[in-house]
């Protein structure tokens, strides 16, 4: 309230007040700017992890379909039915398959109901028996009828003794409703007249009763098998046999170490280079960090205990660098064409704390894809437990480039992309304890992995070799044919 303005004073007042005024933007503004300038941060591990999981799931699905439990159940039922048919007149074996469906059908009758029906049959009251059974749908009833019994009265007790699986007619399966008395007539006729077995009349009558079209191919085959074909009988599938191939999937949590070697050839071209006799490993503060490998592959059994294997593997290997936030120029002295040259790179991290800079940790992380090719020897191959050793060579491609390398005067860390070696070769060796559960073999054991070529190319004089020590956990399962 102390101002009395003329025009210039008002402008000055406005300027002063406006300058004093500050506001703080929301955090999302910076996020949006960062995304706009640098793009979305992508996490390679997630992408490749997802791809590998998809690959593994797809492969497992392909090799395990249809599920073995269901296949086994169907097989048993069909085999049981087949054994009964061998000694008896064949009736509607299509019902063998239907019985499986009925097992899971909530409308299936209970054992108690069956017993009631059987008791009624045993009373030998034909009329009552026929009336009751006329309303019942036979779904799985291969009958044990002796060939020398020719009349309805003779075979009734046999029917009663046989294992009937019946359902009452419903709207859902009207075609299965069958008049039992007609069937009984027919069976009696079959027993007395052998020529009936091949006649067209018999086939059409049965087809009418069971509501199923007959297969014309059965004409050439008058046997029981031919008849079964008419009713879409499926012979049990042969059990799948193991091939020499195995599918393997594994994960290896590991700890990554590195070894640095400075070749110091630059010293021959320039005197007075600092740190001449120093060991570079004493100048840096690097900490091992956790990485992992995730892979899937195929193994081929050359002999029962010796196999060759290959696959696809995703690796993350990293270590931490203790550094300080400080801007500067990292000088990389290089020897090329017999003379000393240097490359200067902008650096944000110093190796020494000369100006009381903020300390920080740099994550020197590599995302890699490799194709391991190796051999495995099962030294002990017991019923349950075993022991194996294996080794592999792994051509490796590194996906990222934002790695940090130290300047040749050991003062700064700079982005090593210009010197980075994208293709490298690793080798691994491992010892595994194995445990079998069914067709699946589990294995666990220590693994060592070594990088053969330095992380950076030959121009960069400081050679970095990486080593991973990990614990491999995996499964292998034979591929069936």
């Amino acid at each position, binding site marked *: 309230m102390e101002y*009395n303005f003329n025009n210039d004073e*008002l402008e000055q007042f406005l300027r002063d007040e*406006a300058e*004093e005024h500050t506001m703080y933007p929301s955090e999302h*503004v*910076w996020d949006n*700017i960062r995304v*706009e300038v640098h793009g979305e941060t992508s996490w390679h591990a997630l992408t490749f992890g997802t791809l590998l999981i998809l690959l593994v799931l797809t492969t497992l699905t392909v090799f395990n379909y249809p599920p073995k439990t269901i296949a086994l159940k169907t097989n048993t039922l069909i085999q049981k039915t087949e054994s009964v048919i061998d000694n008896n007149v064949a009736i509607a074996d299509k019902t063998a398959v239907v019985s499986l469906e009925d097992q899971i059908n909530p409308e299936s009758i209970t054992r108690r109901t069956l017993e009631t029906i059987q008791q009624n049959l045993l009373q030998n009251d034909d009329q009552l028996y026929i009336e009751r059974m006329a309303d019942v749908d036979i779904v799985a009833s291969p009958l044990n009828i002796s060939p020398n019994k020719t009349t309805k009265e003779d075979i009734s007790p046999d029917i009663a003794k046989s294992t009937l699986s019946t359902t009452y007619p419903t709207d859902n399966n009207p075609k299965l409703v069958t008049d039992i008395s007609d069937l009984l007539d027919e069976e009696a006729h079959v027993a007395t007249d052998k020529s009936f077995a091949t006649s067209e009349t018999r086939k059409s009558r049965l087809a009418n009763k069971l509501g199923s079209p007959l297969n014309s191919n059965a004409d050439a085959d008058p046997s029981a098998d031919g008849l079964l074909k008419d009713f879409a009988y499926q012979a049990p599938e042969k059990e799948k046999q193991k091939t020499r191939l195995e599918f393997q999937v594994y994960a290896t949590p590991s700890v990554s170490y590195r070894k640095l070697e400075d070749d110091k050839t630059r010293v021959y071209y320039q005197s007075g280079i600092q740190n001449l006799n120093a060991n570079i490993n004493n100048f840096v503060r690097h900490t091992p960090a956790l990485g992992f490998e995730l892979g899937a592959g195929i193994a081929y059994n050359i002999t029962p205990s010796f196999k060759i294997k290959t696959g696809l593997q995703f690796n993350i290997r990293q270590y931490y660098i203790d550094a300080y936030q400080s*801007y500067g120029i990292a000088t990389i002295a290089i020897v090329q064409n017999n003379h000393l040259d240097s490359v200067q790179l902008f650096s944000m991290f110093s190796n020494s704390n000369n100006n009381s800079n903020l300390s920080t940790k740099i994550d020197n992380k590599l995302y890699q894809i490799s194709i391991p090719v190796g051999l495995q020897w099962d030294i002990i191959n017991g019923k349950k437990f075993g022991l194996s050793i294996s080794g592999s060579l792994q051509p490796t491609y590194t996906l990222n480039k934002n790695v940090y390398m130290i300047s040749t005067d050991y003062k700064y860390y700079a982005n090593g992309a210009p010197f980075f070696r994208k293709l490298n070769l690793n080798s691994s060796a491992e010892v595994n304890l194995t445990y079998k559960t069914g067709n699946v073999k589990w294995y666990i054991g220590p693994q060592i992995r070594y990088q053969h070529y330095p992380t950076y190319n030959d121009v960069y004089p400081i050679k970095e070799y990486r080593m991973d020590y990990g614990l491999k956990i995996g499964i292998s399962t034979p591929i069936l044919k």
Partner: protein
Amino acid sequence: MTEQAIIAGCLHNDTLAQRELYTKYSPKMLSVCYRFAQSREDAEDMLQEGFIKVFTQIHTFQNKGAFEGWVRRIIVHTCINFLKKYKKFNENIGLEYATNLQAKEETVPSIMQGKQVVECIRLLPIGYKTVLNLYAIEGYSHREIGSMLDIEESTSRSQYTRAKAMLENLLIKRRIIEKPKEDFNWLATFSK
């Protein structure tokens, strides 16, 4: 971190340096945007757009003059471009408009004075406040303002005169400034 180090980092597209620059200048620049904008959301959009330009065009900074001034010019131009998309700057509004503005008559504590002044500026019609912001606070000439807003130089002058009168009324009403005492008119007194 020094300004030179920040600039060097930004030239290398380093996120840490960019964040440092943003943290240093964004509060003041948001205030600039807020004076031009209709809402805080608009102001933040302007700020965001402005800083993206700063980071992507930093190589054009030639170390002539203050870096803050360079950033500020980019932000102001971004604000003008933002407003140009939606607004016209040619509107003429009478001084009566100022009397209808909802400004409570109250004594403003000095600590709040800056904010109150900014709020008063924001109450002005968009054309007025834009010209007033550019001329009185940002220091552009009427010719520059005319070319920036695609209006005549004379329009800029007249709008500024009206804007200033309107703002003065508002500031007096809010007791941020006192009404100037009228000079004693000796001639008029003598003639009576």
